[in-house]
């Protein structure tokens, strides 16, 4: 297992109402779960905590998360990930699903 955490600059989350948290994905082989939670106050950083069963890919994780924080206003959120070897494309998909659930309610 490899663990790391980092905060990425991101525009503050737009709507402040709605669900306090959202979850996408499941922990299973080649999959991951992404939990996104609203912070208590506005912020211009997306805080990320990752635990992955496949060590050695920290750089690509950080790149994917930085990219997401750049494209979506996610400032003030906390993103926590449990990963069991998901491919990068799935990481991005789950991030977006969790973010959509959080900001738009039920899909």
């Amino acid at each position: 297992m490899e663990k790391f955490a980092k905060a990425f600059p991101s525009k503050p989350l737009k709507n402040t109402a709605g669900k306090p948290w959202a979850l996408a994905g499941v922990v299973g082989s080649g999959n991951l779960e992404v939990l996104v939670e609203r912070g208590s106050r506005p912020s211009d950083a997306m805080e990320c905590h990752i635990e992955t069963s496949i060590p050695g890919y920290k750089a690509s994780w950080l790149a994917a998360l930085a990219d997401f924080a750049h494209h979506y206003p996610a400032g003030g959120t906390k993103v926590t990930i449990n990963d069991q070897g998901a491919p990068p494309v799935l990481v991005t998909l789950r991030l977006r699903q969790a973010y959509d659930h959080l900001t738009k309610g039920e899909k």
Partner: protein
Amino acid sequence: MTGTSLFHEQTARQRIAAVVDAGSFVELLPPPERLTSPYLAQLGIPVSFDDGIVIGKAKIGGKKLYIAAQVGQFVGGAVGEIHGAKLTGLFKAAARDRVPCALVIESGGVRLHEGSAGEIAITETMRAIFECRAKKVPTIAVIGSDIGAYGGIGILSTCCDFRVMTEHGRLGISGPIVIEKWMGKKAYDSSNRALVWKTSGGKTKYLLGDADALVHDDAGAVREAIGKLLAKSSPVTLKNAKARQAALAKRLKRFGKTENPDDVWKGMGVRDIAAASLASGPEFVALAKTGRK
């Protein structure tokens, strides 16, 4: 998330959302609580925020129920200390509040990585299920996933008042691979899907009377079946135990040496095996109706 509505392809969270009244589900000990397994963490195995089981309160057709769904993708839906304690707590809450409780099963049984803790947890949940039954609070097991209900969870499912199955669901203790290893491929070829499903699948369980409803592989059908059972119960009485003893003895006498599941189907009144093999849910039930009486 895949956009499908096939029950067996859905995740635990999707199943609950699709089965209960829209927006009625309130999760208990939700993911932000981060109740993750210390055993898996110590072993260097990924953990999950819900420890493989989603529990909460909801409504079906406006009627309250407690509902749980196991996450089969996460260590095979197996029961560890936290997973089991959530489930025990839910059935105990159901007994206390006299609110029906449904468990959507997808589990191979005890989580081996947590040793005996999961084993004890399953038996604690069984005790809690019987607490519900003592108060005539309905307990319903839903078995409709490919992983099925095996090991201790297979036994636990038979402690509930009712079992709702789909043809995808399987109910047993030892899975086909274990049996094949034990008895040899000649006695049980675990890659023979037709044989595996006719041994432990929903249709055979329904014919024998171990499943109370056989429905389409669809959340709407499962919802309807649960809804119908919310006001019923199967009391644990001496009279019922004696009737069950007689029925199980009769079943063993009739079919104890029957190798071919088709012969069990015929014995239970299914005339057209080929048609019944292709039929689904209610269509199968219609074909089987005479036999089950």
